């Protein structure tokens, strides 16, 4: 089975009903994506499929064959963070970090789609991403900062 992950073609020969999150983490070594609830509630496992945020814990890999998949590893790396990741660092958008990869991916799609910096709109866009540490305000601030800085999710 052929998959496009973070711009590279990858092939997968395991069980077709293996979940995308496990294929990413176990078969492709992309452990940035986290599993929180496994029920579609928390959004920790959010990745982009064809540019749209989805819960990778609810997707058997066979159902996204040939689609474009992006994970948090596509954004930046410790040496060169994306503007959105930098905003999270500066504004304290991450504490324990479990929710962060999912938050970053949902916010990346928001910014690429021309989403606004209005706090209410950002809260709505992040409604499917739960955080038990920050109380959300710092996350909303971080995303707003990235939107204002015209920083997309990609490295500039």
């Amino acid at each position, binding site marked *: 089975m052929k998959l496009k992950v973070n711009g590279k073609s990858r092939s997968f020969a*395991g*069980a*077709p*009903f*293996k*979940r995308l999150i496990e294929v990413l983490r176990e078969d492709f070594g992309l452990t940035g994506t986290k599993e929180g609830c*496994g*029920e*579609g*509630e928390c*959004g920790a496992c*959010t990745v982009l*499929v064809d540019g*749209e*945020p*989805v*819960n990778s*814990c*609810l*997707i*058997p890999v*066979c*159902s*996204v*064959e040939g689609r474009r998949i992006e994970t948090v590893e596509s954004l930046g790396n410790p040496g060169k963070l994306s503007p959105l990741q930098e905003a999270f660092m500066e504004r304290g958008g991450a504490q324990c970090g479990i929710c962060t990869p999912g938050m970053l991916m*949902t916010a990346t*799609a928001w910014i690429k789609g021309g989403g606004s910096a209005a706090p209410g709109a950002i809260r*709505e*866009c992040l*409604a*499917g*991403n739960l955080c038990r540490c920050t109380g959300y305000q710092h996350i909303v601030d971080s995303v707003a900062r990235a939107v204002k800085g015209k920083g997309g999710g990609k490295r500039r």
Partner: protein
Amino acid sequence: MRGAPETMAVLRPKSGAEAVKLYGQQTKAVPLAGGTDFMVLWNLGLLNGRTILDLSGVRDWRKIAAARTGVLVGSLATHAEIGRHPTVRAEFPLLVSACATIGAAQIQNRGTLGGNIANASPAGDTFPSLLVYEAVVRTVSPRGKRKLPISEVFAGVKRTTLGPGELIEAVELPFLDKRPSRRLFRKVGTRLAQAISKTVAAGILRLGKGGVVEDFRFALGSMAPTAVRLTEAESAVVGFKLTPAVVDEACRRLERSVSPIDDIRSTREYRLEVSRNILRSFLEGNQ
């Protein structure tokens, strides 16, 4: 127990015709659309060892097409795709509002209209809107095609009238002949996103000459084993002016069409009270 992928067999049709053929041969297979209902249970290890009919390769059933008499929404169209479609937005805003309340963005990007219908939860949030628009569900099976009014699709809690090997292909939304004067979609839950409805309502109303009601349709979800049109309340209103007596009578009749329950989310009395208030303020014109 957890979901064990190596116990699963997967059928992967590339067209609607192939899906029908495969499903006809293996009627015990489970169709999989967006997976947002199925995978939650599968992850708990409750559905290991099944054969899956993976519909992701059936491109034709994802389309949304506007025609002269209405819009044909493919069963595999996602809630997000429905919410973005210009004709659906212009002509069927109650469905757009419903789709926008299904889970959060991640769920709307995967969950489909066909999956919502086939799952037949009493709390399915698109159903009141589909009932108000008198949607027609198109199905296909080895026995042929059928067109079912949405009101005939639900048989009970999580049960439909679909037969063995029968798949939902599309949902027809007929255009209304005239624009409603008022419309309403309201979902009452514990929080804005990701909440299962305590009650969900959709309605349209058209006033004619002298304030006489020409058309009134009102439907509720989460208030009975299946979503229902309030036919008794509707007939108290159509052909009359919206006097306080007519509004009172409609609200009194609401109870005849529903049978709400006490459950973990709410009590029967709360549900009745809230839905009566929604109906009343809609009829009084101050939503």
